[in-house]
């Protein structure tokens, strides 16, 4: 169930950080809850194979 945008105005979101850790780190340092995804390029960086995998899954 999604949280309404208007509700995010009142209470800060629980953040999901995907990519550079610095964005999540700055939120965490400010006291907000952050879940980190340990991201790396899909299919070893081969976008074509990643698309094929997406189609299969």
């Amino acid at each position, binding site marked *: 169930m999604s949280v309404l945008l208007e509700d*995010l105005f009142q209470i*800060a979101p629980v953040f999901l950080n*995907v990519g*550079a850790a610095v964005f999540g780190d700055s939120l965490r340092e400010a006291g907000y809850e952050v879940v980190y995804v*340990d991201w790396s*390029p899909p299919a070893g960086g081969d976008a074509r194979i990643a698309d094929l995998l997406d189609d299969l899954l």
Partner: protein
Amino acid sequence: MVRRTVIRKNRYFDSVFLMRVARRIASQQGMSDASAVLATEANRKVLIGMGYGDDGHDPDFAVAGPNDLVIALEGEEAAVDAIAANVDSYLSQGSETSSGTGRSLPRPRSISEAMERRPDCSLAVISVPGKYASREARTAIKKGLHVFLFSSNVSVDDERSLKTEARQRGLIVMGPDCGTAYLGGAGIGFANAVRRGPVGIVGSTGTGMQEFASLVHQAGSGISSGLGTGSRDVSDAIGGISTLMGIDALEADPATKVIAVVSKPPGTAFTATLAERLGRCTKPVVLCLLGAVPDSWRIHDPEGSRGKPKLRWAFTIDEAVASALEAAGASEPAFLRSDERVMRERAAIEIGKMRPEQRHLRGLFAGGTLCYQAQAVFLRSGLLVHSNEPLRGMPELPDPDESRESSFVDMGAETFVQGRPHPMIDASLRRKRLEREGKDPTVAVILLDFILGAVSSPDPVGDMLDAIRNIQDEARGRRGHLCVVASVCGTDEDKQGLESQKAALAGAGVLVFPSGAQAASFCREAAQMLAHRKETADVGPA
């Protein structure tokens, strides 16, 4: 002194992490410099310019591509050898540091896995390389997450489809290319520490939102919420999907008393849509389109003729802040009032110390909006500057790496940030560019901006201070005088400390202004005087 590259094929690390690894390596005994970057075309060019690549005889470097990591090492041979043999340990050490401590479980490897563990997540902050960004954003939307998408280089078609799909689910996509947002008191991305208050923001410009929010805070007021939309949202191709969602949400938000829309000029069709929407907004609106004031807007402002317009125009961010404060019932703070006569007097003193050949201005901006605003300030007075991100009516720099006559360069433009951190985080490219500009004897004035706040460098001014002093010394060595002008965007609550950053600049003889608009206005006065001086010199003595 030797230079050597070490290549790691198909190794991905985020660019901020790599910057920290490079700094740690460079600080080792015997090392003088180090870089750790993905081998994008732009980064290869920079490294070759620094003397790496062995004139094409470094075979691994020659074939390295954008998925490959390059560690470039410069120092004493023994130190370089030791680091080169040990590179992977630096990468794993850094990885441990950046991932935090005390975790019992490995981190999830995907958004889906993360949402299975933590279904209470509600906003994804995505900063992966552009070519993967749509894929991750789409997954996030399908999982019911709002999205803050920092990544750039996302196609128009992908942006439109992401935003359309999100809107259907009641979700907002802030971005791509979104730098800043404020939600529930949290500053997301490059955000300054500001108190909460009555002013809501919708902005397609990250540094524009930062400058606006910081000045509102400095004036004693605050921000209710701030929604970034990404720079392309206001184009006709996207039609302002996120901008309109943001306006709707702020209009319904009881904490928001005034809505400020800060944006580059929108597309023609969206201008009409935006005018119509703002015309029926039940709350006061301040609109700052950085120089653009289409005539068609006035018909949508029926209350304007009654002396207290609901829709207020602002040419600069300073004017937008003053209008927003007035609409919120606060008075305009003195620091937003600039005195052109005083500026002219200061400019005259500076120019009086210069040599005749000094006649050009060079602006090196970390904040793209501040570069754009400075151009708007110049264009309003009929002054032209070259830019890599030209405002309509300004000449484009053919090569962003080479300034021409007077130039304003957005150092955060795509060409400078592929595979490396934004200049607000990593000042190295801007510092090198500044040193280069300072060697040009025709340069009279340098204009800089410094952006404080979350994610930014811990010491933006300190990163540049030696280079500023060096170019001033070099100018004195030529018996000239280099006028360095700056603005600092930030608040007293930012970790870098607004007053200490300003004081460091002032201590180095830099003219510091309270805002980007005022720094640009001073430069405009200086440019006009320099042009007049040149005309007088061209006529010559009688």
